[in-house]
């Protein structure tokens, strides 16, 4: 145990004090923040010119109701002649000419746009949307129904289903959509760190073999301790990075983002954050079910329980896969050789993501339940199942299986490492890998 501690500390120090680690750890959140505000900034500072479109309206009903905005300006040409306008338009830097036929209400296709330069999807959509609305309103008017708009609004309905666990004293309302979303996000975080840090573990062991220090260590340290120390050391580095990123992102969104965002945009963002717009959102068709689900998981005790469980699964999943990467690192001499062996490792992760989408439909279907027990898929599948509320024994069993498999995997990696040491310069075959296991 003492040796595991020593190895963890060494591994941790070596990685955390590296310049590249410090730089990526500090710069990544900055980069993320920049990426998140970039579209807004681009929209603000790099706005395109307003495009002027001449409108020749033979029907006499459309042109006057077309609304100009920042992007498009409609200029009605009364009694205009199309050919003359087109000629005239070429000499200006107008965008083009919109021709609306006389029978637009009965024949909605009788509308043409002539452009001087290439057209754009945005402009075409704006025009068709506006004209559609105008024509629809015109057609409704023809039917002579009074207050039709109000009637339609009164008919519209949006149902929010509140679900309760039967037999539980405190009714914990939960929305499977929202909780699966949390699960998917955490699953991706887990996947992201596995891909980065799994190969760090692998590299670390390959380096160990190439630096030839292993011959010294193998006569000093049990291979199991060695593997465990390396995996936990790298896990500690990953945890450090997550924590630093978390803190930096919070700090940055509190300080840096307001500094570079223009005031008016910030104000509207703050308004949304304050929840002032929820009713407005509901009115404008935002999924109110989602909003109430979000409110329901604001219950702190419930959140704490779920977060702790998810962390247990996330850490367990990380450790198990790190151990698998360690086993690969132990069985090859060079990073290139490891490439073909890492592919099988990532397959269960991808499979688990497919299962995770099935959790949304039914968190208790047999396939989902099984996959939440099998250690290779359980960390990700459980991310989706836990928020939907499942029996405690299932969670406990799954955790025990996950961590037990982790220990076995470390032991296995240690074995491979121990026996594979003196295979320098020789690629192992799967047959040989099997032989080593039997030692």
């Amino acid at each position: 145990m003492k040796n595991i501690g020593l190895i963890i500390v060494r591994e941790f120090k070596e990685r955390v004090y590296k310049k590249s680690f410090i730089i990526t750890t500090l710069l990544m959140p900055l980069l993320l923040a920049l990426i998140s505000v970039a579209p807004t900034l681009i929209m603000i500072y790099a706005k395109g010119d307003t495009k002027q479109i001449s409108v020749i309206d033979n029907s006499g009903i459309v042109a006057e109701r077309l609304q100009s905005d920042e992007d498009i300006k409609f200029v009605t040409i009364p009694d205009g002649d199309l050919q003359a306008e087109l000629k005239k338009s070429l000499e200006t830097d107008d965008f083009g000419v919109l021709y609306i036929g006389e029978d637009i209400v009965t024949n909605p296709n009788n509308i043409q746009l002539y452009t001087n330069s290439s057209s754009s999807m945005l402009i075409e959509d704006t025009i068709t949307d506006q004209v559609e609305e105008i024509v629809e309103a015109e057609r409704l008017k023809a039917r002579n129904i009074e207050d039709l708009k109000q009637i339609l609004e009164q008919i519209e309905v949006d149902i929010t289903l509140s679900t309760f666990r039967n037999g539980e004293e405190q009714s914990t309302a939960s929305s499977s959509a929202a909780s699966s979303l949390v699960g998917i996000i955490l699953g991706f975080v887990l996947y992201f760190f596995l891909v980065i840090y799994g190969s760090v573990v692998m590299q670390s062991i390959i380096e160990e073999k190439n630096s030839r220090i292993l011959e010294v260590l193998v006569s000093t340290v049990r291979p199991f301790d060695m593997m465990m120390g390396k995996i936990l050391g790298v896990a500690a580095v990953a945890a450090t990075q997550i924590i630093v990123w978390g803190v930096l992102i919070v700090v940055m969104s509190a300080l840096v983002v307001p500094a570079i965002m223009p005031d008016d945009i910030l104000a509207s963002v703050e308004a949304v954050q304050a929840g002032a717009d929820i009713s407005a959102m509901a009115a404008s068709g935002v999924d109110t079910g989602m909003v109430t689900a979000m409110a329901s998981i604001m219950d702190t005790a419930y959140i704490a329980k779920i977060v702790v469980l998810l962390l247990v699964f996330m850490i367990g999943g990380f450790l198990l896969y790190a151990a698998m990467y360690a086993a690969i690192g132990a069985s090859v001499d060079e990073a290139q050789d490891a490439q073909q062996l890492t592919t099988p490792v990532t397959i269960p992760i991808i499979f688990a993501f497919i299962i995770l989408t099935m959790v949304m439909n039914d968190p208790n279907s047999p396939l989902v339940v099984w996959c939440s027990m099998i250690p290779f898929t359980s960390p990700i599948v459980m991310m989706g199942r836990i928020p939907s509320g499942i029996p405690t024994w299932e969670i406990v069993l799954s955790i025990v299986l996950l961590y037990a498999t982790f220990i076995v995997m470390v032991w296995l990696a240690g074995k491979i490492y121990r026996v594979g040491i003196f295979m320098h310069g020789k690629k192992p075959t799967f047959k040989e890998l099997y032989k080593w296991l039997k030692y």
Partner: protein
Amino acid sequence: MSNIITAQHITKRFTGHTALDDVSVEIPAGSVYGLLGPNGAGKTTLIRVINRITIPDEGQVFFENRPITQQDIYRIGYLPEERGLYKKMKVGEQALFLARLKGLSRHEALVRLKQWFIRFGIEDWWNKKVEDLSKGMAQKIQFIVTVLHTPKLLIFDEPFSGFDPINANLLKEEILRLRDEGATVIFSTHNMSSVEEICDHITLINKSKNILSGRVDDIRRSHGNNIFAVNYRGEADAFTSVTECCDVLESEYDKFSGMTSAKIHINQDDDVRSVISAINEQVELRSFTEIIPSMNDIFIRAVNGNLK
């Protein structure tokens, strides 16, 4: 004297060749034991079998007359031929890490490391990175780390390679000092002069087989070719002409001192005493010494298959 290590009938095959073929060695406690042999003979494999890095296909290793266990390994200090240290780590930090892995407390490790660093005159290396050290320098560090926890048995694989003569001497002195303090030392080498100077026992391995084993003195004596150096007053032919009991291989007369030095060969079954008295009757004999072959000669002859 009891044996600290007994290896019996060790056979180890790799794909395509046999590294060790029925090799047995007995290593007495408190000795300095040399494993000799040309490159690729199987010395390193034997060392790895002894300290349980490699599992032999056949045969068994005993530590203090019990089958060796993993626990015993932690009482062995092993300096592999492939020197390896973490390149990015600082010397002191790394030495401390390795010492503590071997069970020393932080304090104890610091005290001992300081002593060793002073002894080797390398105190100012403490904060250097390993990648900035030369091969020989790194090797010194590794030597210190190997012996720091005062293990009962020390195994050095080619300890002198990469050292200049001064440092090689330093190393020899340290090996002898460690033996005097009670450790048993096994080392492999093809540096024959070091063998004569510091080894008590040797095993010569060639082509995966143990071809010669025993005390260094006994081996050298038993492989003498009955050649003697004779020193007498008088001209070179003074005794060449009179004696028929031996062949004179070479002789040289020094006219200033009036002395002759000669090398003679005595037939195996002749009595050395009668030869001496025969010579003594003819000339004024000043000295008569057996010329014992060097380990280097024995090594080359043994490897070429010309031994006896």
